[in-house]
């Protein structure tokens, strides 16, 4: 199990050694990155089966928690690791003249993403988050168009401010509890983190991480940044980076188990995100802008799902994230080499029917039209929201459904343009289908296949999400010795007391 630390170490090592390797042998340095990512992909995929029934914990350096840093390997993190490796492989800059530092930066991003999903320690989470952010600044700076500097700079300021808030929140938590291990903190949450200070810290952390997670109102960077970077990179950001930030928030919420008022706040922010995203997308007439705001809206849906307490909320959030990853990355990859103005899409259906069909599949799934997977995802969200039987959740339900109608308006506008006959004066929208668009078609294929097998996929994701929320399982995995010696205790409270007293001894 310890070899899973390679998930982080291998890409990290590769990132730092690549410039050196490049001076020795340019050929090796071109393919070293994809090779590393491929190895990591295989590693994560094989680990998924191993941990499917019982998760594992890696205590780095042999230091036991809470002094040492723990990597927590459960099926969810392995699933995310596979997705991360896959995405980086798909958007890898294969061109021969890309500078080596870009490869290094990509590998750094991959390493930090891996670390983010498997980390079991709060500060470690922050380190990987920062590393991801900083390497992404670098990638944006190298790959942007000339009109990008202002947007990227605003993004850097906002993201850096967010990171500072995240750190402040961590500092407050540390002062309150004296520990940084996520499992330990979840045990102490009932007793020591049930005061206003801790909630304020949680708010600071969520606001800070929310910048990357496209939380309203700190998501103003999304449209301008996505417009200025290349489409495959936008696919990476919208499809993957935002999900990683949401995973951080998920872990924080899991750790602290906030009460209903806090969840209501998250719900309101989610609703605002959904409304603002859909409305501004409706108004937009630039393809990238439409997709960016649609992405904000979908992530608003994820926050609405997160505000449903208990494991149902986690399950819905994970389901929504996976669906959005497939659809949004696919859409961004699909619009490479298409003109930004939607009216220039005219004649696409005649020029390349399969491209138009792929577009249609993505849009129908995004809208939630049966029998596509998006419908089942949305249906379960509706059922989850109605089960709460509180008026604010009914309001959220109303917002979600209204947003779908507005979504239909602007997405069907795109479909209408695509299937319109091409006017004689305008040039063809598409010459030949390029490789990124082929990848998008592959994503559409995955979507269609998961539609046919939705029941087993749904069940699997439900199990995975249940394992994330299962507090006892996590504590058992991270602290096996202490848990075993106290397993005959019935109440959680006395277990907490016993464990915290043991930790006190260990600290002193």
């Amino acid at each position, binding site marked *: 199990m310890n070899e899973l630390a390679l998930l982080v170490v291998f890409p990290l090592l590769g990132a730092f050694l690549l410039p050196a390797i490049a001076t020795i042998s340019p050929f090796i340095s071109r393919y070293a990155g994809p090779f590393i990512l491929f190895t990591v992909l295989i590693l994560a995929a094989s680990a998924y089966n191993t941990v499917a029934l019982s998760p594992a914990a890696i205590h780095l350096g042999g230091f036991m928690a809470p002094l040492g840093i723990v990597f927590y390997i459960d099926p969810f993190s392995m699933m995310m690791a596979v997705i991360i490796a896959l995405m980086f492989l798909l958007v890898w800059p294969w061109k021969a003249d890309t500078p080596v530092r870009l490869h290094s930066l990509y590998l750094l991003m991959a390493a930090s993403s891996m670390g983010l999903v498997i980390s079991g320690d709060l500060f470690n989470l922050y380190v990987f988050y920062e590393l991801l952010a900083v390497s992404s600044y670098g990638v944006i700076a190298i790959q942007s168009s000339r009109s990008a500097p202002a947007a990227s700079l605003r993004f850097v300021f906002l993201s850096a*401010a967010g990171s500072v808030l995240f750190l402040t929140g961590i500092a407050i938590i540390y002062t309150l509890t004296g520990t940084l291990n996520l499992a330990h903190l979840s045990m102490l949450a009932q007793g020591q983190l049930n005061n206003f200070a801790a909630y304020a810290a949680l708010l600071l952390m969520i606001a800070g991480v929310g910048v990357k997670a496209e939380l309203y109102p700190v998501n103003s960077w999304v449209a301008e940044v996505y417009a200025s970077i290349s489409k495959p990179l936008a696919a990476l950001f919208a499809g993957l980076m935002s999900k990683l930030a949401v995973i951080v928030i998920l872990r924080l919420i899991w750790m602290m188990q906030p009460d209903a008022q806090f969840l209501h706040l998250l719900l309101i922010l989610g609703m605002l995100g959904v409304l603002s995203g859909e*409305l501004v997308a409706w108004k937009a007439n630039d393809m990238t802008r439409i997709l960016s705001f649609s992405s904000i809206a979908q992530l608003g849906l994820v926050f609405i799902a997160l505000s449903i307490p208990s494991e149902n909320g986690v399950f819905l959030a994970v389901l929504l994230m996976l669906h959005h990853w497939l659809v949004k990355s696919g859409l961004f990859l699909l619009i490479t080499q298409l003109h930004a103005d939607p009216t220039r899409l005219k004649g696409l259906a005649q020029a390349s029917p399969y491209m138009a069909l792929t577009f249609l599949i993505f849009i129908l799934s995004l809208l939630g039209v049966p029998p596509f997977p998006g419908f*089942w995802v949305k249906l379960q969200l509706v059922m989850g929201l*109605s089960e709460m039987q509180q008026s604010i959740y009914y309001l959220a339900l109303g917002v979600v*459904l209204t947003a779908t*109608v507005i979504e239909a308006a602007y997405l069907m506008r795109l479909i*209408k343009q695509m299937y319109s006959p091409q006017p004689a004066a305008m040039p063809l929208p598409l010459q030949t289908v390029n490789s990124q668009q082929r990848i998008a078609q592959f994503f559409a294929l995955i979507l269609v296949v998961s539609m046919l097998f939705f029941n087993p996929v749904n069940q699997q994701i439900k199990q995975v999400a249940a394992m994330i929320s299962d507090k006892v399982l996590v504590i058992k995995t991270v602290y096996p010795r202490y848990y075993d010696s106290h397993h005959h205790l019935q109440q959680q409270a006395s277990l907490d007391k016993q464990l915290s007293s043991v930790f006190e001894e260990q600290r002193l």
Partner: protein
Amino acid sequence: MTILDELLVLGIAASVLFMFAGRFKLMRFFAPVVYVGMLLILIKMSVLVSDPSVIQIHSSLQLTILSMNLELRYDALSWLFALITVFAALASSIYLSGAYAKGHVDGDPPAHVIQWVLLINVATMLLMLASGDFISLFISWELVSWASFWMMALNHKSAARKAAVKYLIYAMAGAMMFLAALGLIYAAMGSLAYVDLITFVMQQPLQQSVLLAILFFGAFGIKMAILPFHLWQAKAYAETPGPGAAFLGAISSRMGMYAIIVVLVQLMGSRVLNTGLADTPVDLQMIFAWIAALTTIIPTFIALQQHDAKKLLTWHGIGQGGYMLLGVIMLDSIGSAGGIMHIFNYASYQAALFLSVVAVVYRTGTSDLNQLGGLVTRMPLSFLVMLIGIIGLAGLPPMSGFVSKWLIYRSLILNGEPLLFVAVVIGTLGTILSVYKLIHNTFLGQLRMEHQEIREVPWSMLLPMLVLVSIVFITGFMPGLVLQWIAQVQAVVGLPVVDYHLGGISDAKGDLDMIWVSLILFYGFGVGALIFYFLGGPSRRIHQYDNYAGGHFLTSGVRYHYSNNFYPGLMHLIGNWYQGFFVWCEKVIYSVISFSAQLFENSYRQRQPAFLLILIALVCLFYLIFEHPVRVGN
């Protein structure tokens, strides 16, 4: 594999096969053959309407998704709707497969594409009629909506596509209301079978059921284009490629009626519909009845003002939907029989009328009523079709439209609703006026010079039209044929059953016997014909252009045809009332959305958003420092 499976699989398999092989010339008559096959299967299934002991035919497919069981079954109501669907599709398909396929109407795709989309529409509708639980109802509902959208969007012209997208937005809004209602049922009951709604109505407070009923009514009413959701239908159906529009107008919008009968009448019933809203004497039955009555009046008089033949007919479609709803919502034996029978009748004469208008368009190239006239001598059989169609639409004996309308009037009076009765009679008045305008401007009056050489449409197009009007006449002459099915439907749905016989109904307060009515009518006509042809003076046939006015010969170039502004007196009276209220409502909604979008967009245009973040942070930290001093250490 049960009979129901055969029907559904036939539809789906035919659609898939046609997708690949449809463009070959050999496949031209494939679609009509498929529909004939479906009709044969339906005839085999007719035990549903002839044998009172057979309530449902189940499918052998057992599907469980997300721990919910999907059930497929047919009952008498589904059978009736399926019959109407398949027959309307058969008529449109025969129409499409003959000479129409060779000609090309501007903006339309090739005929085999229309046939394929028609097949998909029929397959999805048959699936929807088979739904036995809410999830399959919702899924098939969405599939039917998107199939109709596809049919509308087949026309390449941008106006047609815009109308189709507008329809889709309305349909999405309806679907979301439906989904909200499903969410409420799921929250209380934990599953989405039909019995759950029945239990919900029994157990939960009635006001919640009332809310559910309103949500369902909104969802289904949008598809039916009931006021105030009617603005999408007329333009969208008018712009659909010819025979496809006949099919859509005949049965597609009536899917909403099917869902209303199943959900509001069968599952929820009078317990919910007769509950006073928030302890007032106003109940849902009254509200829905008045909405139906207004739907009967307002679109009919808008139809009066149209000068495009197709738009006139599609506006009528909206109005007639009001009759159906009104009949069914009365929840008694006669009214509901009238309402359900109206669905059947309306499908037959709407299809006939639309196909005859498309025949005129096929020959003359235009459906503009101000550009036509005098075609009765050139296209006599199409004229006959339209004549019988408009007599049916207007609801005059001896056609079937009279029976269903008479039943609805009777039920309104027996239930003590004089105001509603007056409302629907005004609606009928509007119908009569506007259909007369339709037939006069198309077939009567002065023949245009450019239409002198027009011939009748070929037999492949005439045959379905004539079959449809013969149905209109036969079911008018002997309505018992249809009432037999409707009685079974009423028994299954839980409505009181109407006491019928071959010629009509028997009721303690007054019977209806169409056989006698028709015979007396024909007797009267016979006497008139006798007097006119044999006892009158000598008569001579003259040319259609041999006309005089004030002793002066009118050359064919002189236009004396009366077509524009057909009812100036009426318009003078009611013109001021049509200020476009509903269009204004639509614009208001659009403006609200536009304004909110602008507000949100402004909130996104921040120069330095980091400041907002730091501000939030400072507020939090101030709370921390001053409200809860942080203690360092343990």
